[in-house]
């Protein structure tokens, strides 16, 4: 669009400025009108004064502005130092540790079954080194572990050939281990999933190695108790450890 007469820009800017001001005023008036319509509708529909409740409610829910307290008036960390009494073992436990403690104490929750099975597995391994026989009852509980199932199957074939169980020493051993472990149920996080091979005789080593991975970990110097297909170790490692422990044959 071209202008033959005075241009908008150039030395005489007043026309441009006037135009700009007019456009601006129109926009502001639009905004005001919009607000008027909104308010008028709210008045006629009856929801304009809805945010004004009675004085008591307003006082009750006012924003709190004191130090040491949040805007609702609650104290931060109020329950941090409280202790709760466990309904099971009657001990006083810190509030933040209460839920995990209950899990272990009641034997419910995700971790407790895993830990219990591990405990039984280690019990079985240690008692296995003492005797050739084992309590099948213990093994029947270890459904989840592939290695334990293999152990169970193997056990049944062995049981028929071997002499009667040395149940006394077995029970004694289990009982002893049982008490030592029950004293320390809350430290299961540090459970070592391995066995140190120095304490085992050659027969035990052989029987262990036939069912377990057995690769010795560099950090802990313990044999891996996972199954033959454990993903942490390769078959080469397993072969090497068998050569080493059992001698070339």
């Amino acid at each position, binding site marked *: 669009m071209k202008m033959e007469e005075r241009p908008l820009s150039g030395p005489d800017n007043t026309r441009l400025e006037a135009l700009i001001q007019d456009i601006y005023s129109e*926009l502001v008036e639009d905004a005001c009108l919009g*607000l008027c319509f909104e*308010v*008028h509708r709210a*008045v006629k529909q009856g929801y304009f004064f809805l945010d004004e409740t009675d004085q008591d409610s307003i006082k009750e829910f006012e924003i709190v502005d004191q130090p040491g307290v949040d805007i609702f008036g609650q104290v931060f960390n109020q329950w941090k130092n409280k202790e709760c009494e466990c309904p099971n073992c009657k001990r006083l436990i810190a509030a933040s540790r209460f839920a995990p403690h209950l899990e272990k104490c009641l034997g419910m929750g995700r971790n407790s079954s895993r830990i219990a099975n591990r405990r039984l597995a280690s019990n079985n391994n240690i008692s296995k080194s003492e005797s050739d026989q084992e309590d099948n009852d213990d093994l029947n509980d270890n459904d989840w572990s592939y290695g334990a199932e293999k152990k169970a199957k193997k056990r049944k074939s062995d049981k028929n050939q071997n002499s009667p169980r040395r149940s006394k020493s077995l029970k004694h051993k289990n009982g002893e281990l049982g008490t030592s472990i029950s004293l320390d149920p809350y430290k299961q996080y540090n459970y070592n999933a391995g066995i140190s091979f120095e304490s085992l005789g050659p027969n035990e080593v052989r029987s262990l190695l036939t069912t377990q991975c057995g690769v010795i970990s560099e950090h802990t110097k313990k044999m891996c108790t996972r199954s033959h297909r454990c993903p942490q170790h390769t078959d080469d490692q397993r072969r090497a450890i068998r050569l080493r422990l059992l001698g070339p044959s």
Partner: protein
Amino acid sequence: MSPLVDRKVLYCESAPSGTIKLQIVPEIMSKEYQMRAAINQKLIEMGERERLKELLRAKLVECGWKDQLKAHCKDVIREKGLEHVTVEDLVTEVTPKGRALVPDSVKKELLQRIRAFLVQHAAL
């Protein structure tokens, strides 16, 4: 008589008897008016007017203008009575105050944007 007003004469060519002289009301034919109309049309067509409106609304809410004005509305309503307040009442009471309450920063920014648009698109 304002120098901007022209008395223009239009010729209508499609009339059967040849040409007809028409005389149009002067104010509508002034070049100033034409130019403004064209600029407004351009503003609308390019969507700039909507954008400016939204920008202004957002800024006014941000700076608390809307709440201030709403409080003023409450007073007006209480004064006139809840049942009998009309749109005209609100408009006449509220608009001048609203125009005055717009903060300078918002005003400057909007003027700036309008100026930029005009300079760019109005073929000056």
